[in-house]
């Protein structure tokens, strides 16, 4: 659209801004987002992001499902780290019920959650490397992720969409040789981490493209509700695991990496360092893993053992009522928040006293991380959008629910 106030007559040449559509299907493998850019040459003057291309009606579906049936939906929120979402929702419902999970369950939730978080950061780093032209980094990162998927598959039965958490506990316990398998996977993932570090961190091309692009100030970051690695790269030391500890995060010792400049390279370094810290958490938690049951001993919440179900009438009726009618959660509402892969994942859960939720509202970190996209992108060049978009790590399932 010609706009005469922007006509620049350099050397007598008549110029106009151009409208470019980075459509919903584009190679950046992070999700479907449409960006309508107004360009002046290579510089972006205005960016209008349109989301909603993966809106699957999550909240509406949850209102028609029982409390336990919501877990598969939570898997598909941040589908790169599904275990973190599962446990976040379980925590929210347990708060409403007023029950506390067993110590062993808390430790296992910490361990499995951190494994998922390592997978999330690896995918982000790998995809970032791919989009800037380094296919090897992507191959290494996905290979490391495969080792983690093997581990998750041993324990939960599925690679990606696991539905492992339950209200009041977990689906099954860890396998007996978990510590040995973790040592095997950890060694390989650590080797690949060093490979990626050597490949990217001091790479001239990578530095040129990531340093100084996608900068945001601290005040803007807080005003736009950014959390997670995005906020920590600007220098604000806010991590839900440290500030409001839950599960076993209060018992283990780990550092929270904080950046300074608020640009893409800081986000890359924060994520890289967080992988190492997650491994530290898992090692410590495995060493101190307490024995005991993984499910709360409450027949109103947890399904009974199969022997009781098939051999006694009380067990059968208990099972029947829990599966058909759902867990009867007392009326009330709560906002419970945990640290997801991209930032603070919150669940605003409203119950009306029946077995189905009245509302499951999700505070998705990617949605709020994407709010200031115009601030990141305007004034820069088109090529800077790619590392910025990768640094945000926008997961389509989370932003659109």
């Amino acid at each position, binding site marked *: 659209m010609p706009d005469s106030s922007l006509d620049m007559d350099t050397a007598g040449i008549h110029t106009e801004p151009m409208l470019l559509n980075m459509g919903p299907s584009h190679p950046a493998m992070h999700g479907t987002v449409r960006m309508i850019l107004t360009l002046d040459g290579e510089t972006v003057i205005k960016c209008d992001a349109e989301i909603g291309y993966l809106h699957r009606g999550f909240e509406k579906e949850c209102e*028609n499902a029982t409390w336990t049936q919501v877990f598969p939906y939570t898997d598909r929120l941040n589908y790169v780290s599904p275990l973190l979402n599962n446990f976040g929702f379980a925590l929210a419902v347990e708060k409403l019920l007023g029950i506390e999970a067993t110590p062993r369950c808390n430790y296992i939730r910490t361990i499995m959650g951190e494994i998922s978080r390592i997978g999330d950061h690896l995918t982000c780093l790998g995809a970032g490397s791919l989009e800037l032209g380094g296919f090897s980094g992507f191959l290494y990162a996905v290979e490391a992720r495969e080792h983690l998927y093997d581990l998750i598959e041993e324990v939960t039965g599925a690679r990606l969409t696991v539905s492992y958490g339950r209200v009041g506990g977990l689906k099954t316990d860890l396998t007996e040789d978990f510590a040995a398998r973790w040592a095997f996977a950890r060694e390989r993932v650590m080797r690949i981490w060093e490979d990626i570090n050597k490949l990217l961190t001091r790479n001239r091309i990578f530095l040129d493209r990531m340093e100084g692009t996608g900068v945001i100030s601290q005040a803007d970051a807080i005003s736009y*509700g950014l959390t997670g690695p995005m906020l920590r790269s600007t220098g604000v030391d806010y991590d839900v695991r440290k500030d409001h500890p839950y599960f076993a995060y209060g018992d283990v010792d780990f550092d929270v990496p904080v950046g300074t400049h608020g640009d893409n390279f800081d986000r890359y370094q924060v994520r890289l360092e967080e992988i190492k810290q997650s491994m530290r958490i898992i090692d410590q938690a495995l060493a101190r893993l307490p024995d005991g049951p993984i499910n709360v001993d409450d027949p109103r919440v947890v399904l009974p053992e199969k022997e009781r179900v098939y051999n006694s009438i009380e067990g059968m009726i208990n099972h029947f009522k829990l599966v058909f009618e759902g867990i009867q959660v007392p009326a*009330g509402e709560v*906002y419970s928040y945990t640290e997801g892969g991209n930032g603070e994942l*919150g669940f605003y859960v409203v119950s009306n006293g029946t077995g189905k939720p009245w509302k499951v509202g999700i505070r998705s970190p990617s949605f*709020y991380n994407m709010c200031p996209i115009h601030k990141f992108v305007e004034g820069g060049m088109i090529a800077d959008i790619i590392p910025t978009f990768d640094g945000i790590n926008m997961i389509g399932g989370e932003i*659109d*629910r």
Partner: protein
Amino acid sequence: MSASDIKRLVRKFKNDIVDSSERLGMDTALVKKDNIVEIVQFLKDDDKLAYNMLRHLTCVDYLHREPRFEVIYVLYSTTNKQQVVLKAMINADDTTIDSISHLYGSANWAEREVWDMYGIKFNHHPNMRRILLYEEFEGHPLRKDYDKQTSQPRVQLLRQERDAFEEFKTYHVGESAEGSRS
């Protein structure tokens, strides 16, 4: 502590606050919607309270109750690490409320989403249009009276989406069944 924050709020805005509570560790204040901008501005600008982050903005639809909607504001202070929840009551016949998008940047998209899903219009919002759904969509899906299994396609579909279910819905007792395959 957060309890005294709520007390300060109640003292200052006596007329607007209907109820305040501290259930389940969440400090909540139920407010009337008229002076919501002032209340939020007070919470944000005050030196000791300093609620500088809007963590979440959403809405709940209580269908058979007056007021029908409640817009929820979850505010957080990164310096004091405190959280407060405001619930603004909205009646079914007047679903508008003032926008706080000039106070927090994140409110811009969050309010658009509440408009899209629940139909609550925010006054003085710079860009009040749908965000997750498309412009041709009719209705506000997360309202309790919106049926889940509807279909509003944007392109000409090659065949029916849900075979048996759509026929069942068009089948009325007492009417002839001949014209139901429409």
